[in-house]
């Protein structure tokens, strides 16, 4: 078994996870990728979705993130997420409520910027619903 990789998940409010794990699967901007120890250095965007943490041959925990950035190098993967919720704490109602709110925001959007922002919210809510289901 190769060495473990240091996984860090940080949200603006605090450091959420910092532990050594076997592998992390991250929803990258251009497709999901798994990061093991000795991964080539890389910086990528993260789209809304679920991060799976693999440890001891199984998925030890799954965390929903609402997009952000990831930095990978040989010994460490750092994910900067604006919002992160363990999948276990998500509910269908919550996702549905967010979807509703995002759609309303999209309808109310009066300019390009607001529209883009609302569209992003819709995407996040849809990813959240997919994570629940």
């Amino acid at each position, binding site marked *: 078994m190769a060495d473990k990789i240091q996984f860090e998940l940080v949200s*603006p409010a*605090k450091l959420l996870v910092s532990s050594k794990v076997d592998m992390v699967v991250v929803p990258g901007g251009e497709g999901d990728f798994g990061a093991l120890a000795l991964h080539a250095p*890389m*910086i*990528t*965007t993260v789209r809304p979705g679920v991060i799976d943490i693999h440890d001891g041959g199984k998925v030890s925990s799954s965390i929903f993130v609402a997009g952000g950035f990831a930095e990978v190098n040989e010994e460490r993967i*750092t994910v900067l997420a604006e919002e992160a919720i363990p999948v276990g704490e998500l509910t269908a109602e919550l996702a549905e409520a967010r979807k509703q709110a995002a759609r309303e925001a999209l309808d109310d959007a009066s300019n390009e910027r607001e529209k883009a922002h609302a569209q992003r919210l819709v995407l996040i809510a849809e990813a959240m619903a997919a994570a629940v289901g």
Partner: protein
Amino acid sequence: MASLKDLRMKIVSVKSTRKITSAMKMVAASKLRRAQTAAEAARPFAERMERMLGTLAASLAGQSGAPRMLTGTGADKVHLLVAVTADRGLCGGFNSSIVRATKAMAADLLKQGKIVKIMPVGRKAREQLRRDYGQYMIEGFEQLGRKGIVFAEADQVAAQISAMFDGEEFDVCTVVYNKFKSAIAQEVTRQQVIPFPVPELAAKSDTGPKAIYEFEPGEEEILAEILPRNLATQMFRALLESQASEQGARMTAMDNATRNAGDMINALAIKYNRSRQAQITKELIEIISGAEAL
């Protein structure tokens, strides 16, 4: 000379003031602890974002395609000053030191023939800057962080700023806020956020043959996404620091006020006792001299 009754009433009033200030001090102390923890918890995110930005900027250095938020508009004409204060007073020099720094900066820039815009964050900034710099004022924010600062609030402020930047309403943006040094000391900080000064880290990573990063999708796309996020992060940090400083300043101010009230009560009590004694002596003399006259 104040009558005994007046003195008694004055002592009662100062005592109740002391009660209020000491309660405010304790409230500020507990809020300070919470604000301090929040400010510390937010540090890792900002640090890592800075590191990532440094790596990105280093790999993009010298190229022409860098986003304007990093390189600036090329002009240096219109300055946006974001003054971060509290919504409430009674916290010593906390608000006025920010206002003073902002005024000094604005006056300096105006003297150089630049255009100044001031965005007040916090009620006190708006109220105190309105008189002298009202014509430069643009819409700001108030009532942030009533239940502790959340990232969404910082995001709101950042969105407003970047919308203005996209609309080419200013060239340089500087945030003026109180940096938390300790419970009794704050430091007025002027931080330029647009164009964003590349962290020193980037300069360092140039010297050593560091790992060469791959970028997905490309440097520019990531930068275009990360810079507005970074603006929000910087605002978040400024708001958190300011919040912690505010509570620290209030705690110190209220501690002083409580102590002053205590001194005042002592002085008034001595005065009261003396007046009472004087009155008793006077009455005794009157009785005695009355008896002697008979």
